[in-house]
């Protein structure tokens, strides 16, 4: 009997290893809806959760989602706390010096200024709030306005509401819903500004095999229209690719 159990255990273990998928830990911020956020069940949800799970399925990885605050999201990828970043991160040359990106899974988008109703267009030269270490923060710093940085996106919006900043500069996709549901209190001002090379998945430079697999998976999702469907679901944008 004992031998039988032992044999069964060995069989189970070896079967387990034979079919064991590599676990990939997916790092995200969880505070940038609709890209990624923590839903009321306390789970990571959003466009990137859906795309990421699908990509893992195609690439044959078992994926586990991990939260990490935005400011330290690249350092903690480099030190190996998780293996990828899917956090609405735009592909930029500056970031490419530290990490690799897959091709974008969300096309280059517009960033926009948002302010309280009745704010003059000059506000974009005043105190402008942006999330720290974003391309928008970099843009504001060079635009001649006074940059007011916050660690999470929601705080930039709060800063505009309580008058701490004259305007907030962020991804238009992030601000859109906030403007729509503000009851006219918040409006876009100035022109939209295209920034960045689209949103890609960040991967350590040494993980070339994983990058290629995810790259291929993104190509497949772009080809079969499933990526477009997800973008339409979360962002109401038709035929993005």
């Amino acid at each position: 009997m004992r031998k039988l159990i032992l044999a069964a255990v060995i069989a189970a273990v070896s079967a387990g290893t034979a079919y064991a998928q590599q676990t990939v830990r997916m790092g995200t911020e969880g505070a940038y809806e609709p890209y990624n956020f923590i839903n009321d069940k306390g789970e990571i949800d959003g466009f990137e959760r859906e795309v990421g799970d699908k990509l893992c399925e195609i690439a044959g990885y078992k994926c586990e989602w991990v939260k990490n605050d935005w400011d330290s999201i690249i350092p903690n990828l480099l030190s190996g706390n998780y293996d990828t970043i899917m956090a609405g991160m735009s592909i930029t040359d500056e970031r490419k010096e530290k990490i690799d990106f897959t091709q974008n899974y969300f096309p280059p988008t517009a960033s926009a200024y948002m302010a309280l109703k009745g704010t003059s267009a000059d506000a974009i030269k005043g105190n402008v709030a942006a999330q720290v270490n974003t391309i928008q923060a970099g843009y504001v710093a060079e635009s001649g306005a006074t940059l007011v940085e916050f660690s999470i996106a929601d705080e930039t919006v709060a800063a505009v509401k309580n008058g701490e900043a004259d305007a907030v500069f962020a991804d238009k996709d992030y601000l859109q819903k906030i403007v729509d549901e503000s009851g006219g209190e918040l409006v876009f001002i100035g022109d939209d500004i295209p920034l960045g090379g689209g949103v890609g998945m960040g991967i350590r430079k040494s993980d070339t095999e994983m990058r290629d697999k995810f790259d291929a998976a993104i190509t497949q999702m772009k080809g079969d229209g499933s990526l477009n469907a997800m973008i339409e679901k979360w962002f109401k944008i038709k035929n993005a690719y």
Partner: protein
Amino acid sequence: MMMEFCADPKALEGLQWMACYLTTPKHFQFYFSFIIVLTLIFVTAPVVMLLGFGGALARRSDFLPLKLLGNVYTSMVRGVPDIIFFLFVPIAMDQGIEYLRHKTLCPEVTEPVYRGNDFVVCPPAKMPLGDAAQWVHETWGFVLAVIAFALVFGAFAANTIYGALDAVPRAQLETARAYGMNDRQTFWRIHLPQMWTYALPGLSNLWMILIKATPLLFLLGIEDIVYWARELGGSKTSFFEYPHPDWRVWYFLALLIFYLTFTWLSEKVFNRLTARANPGQSTMGNMGQNLRLEAGR
């Protein structure tokens, strides 16, 4: 935990909405984070006391290397800003352990561990393993946090205990000797019991500071009460089932009440401990007590 009428949040109003909102699984993660914070405090405190005694006794030791170790530990940790230690210790320990495991478990890997910006160890050397459940990763992070907190606060405790041991009147120890007690007996029966009255004010300070330092947990990637208060309190659009405006002020008010209650209770406990340490001591604290007793008569 969810009540049945919570199935459709959009149809809810008033108190019912609030009851459902406060019992979402996300809120239970918030409530659970209070337990995490309390656990950190109650697990760290005994380790702090151990390090404190170890450090103090090392500094008092006649054995030079031990004395040096005690001195270096207390002066170095006390001299470096806490936040640097909180950031440095977990990263250094995590990478140090992974590096050692990499060297022992994967000797066949010839590529360097540091490749450009990347810190890459072989999969079996990962700590915890890459395929470990998320709670294992979180527990590991918590253990590193406890070590970081204990190292920092232990140095302060060592200094407090060191000073308190020195503050016990010399006559007390000489009398013990005159009664024929040896070193060990003198220490355990006379020196240590009398030390508490001098150490308690300093240790109670440390305890309070430890309580107040717990929000630093978030810096170490642990989702503590501050993280959840900020996350839950932020304004929510209709991407969420329970949209609401910016409610951070209410969540932080709850934290304020939690911390005030906790420190208030702690103060009561410390007052009792101090009262217990006082009797029989040749200190003003004890005299004050005697005077109060007399006045009461």
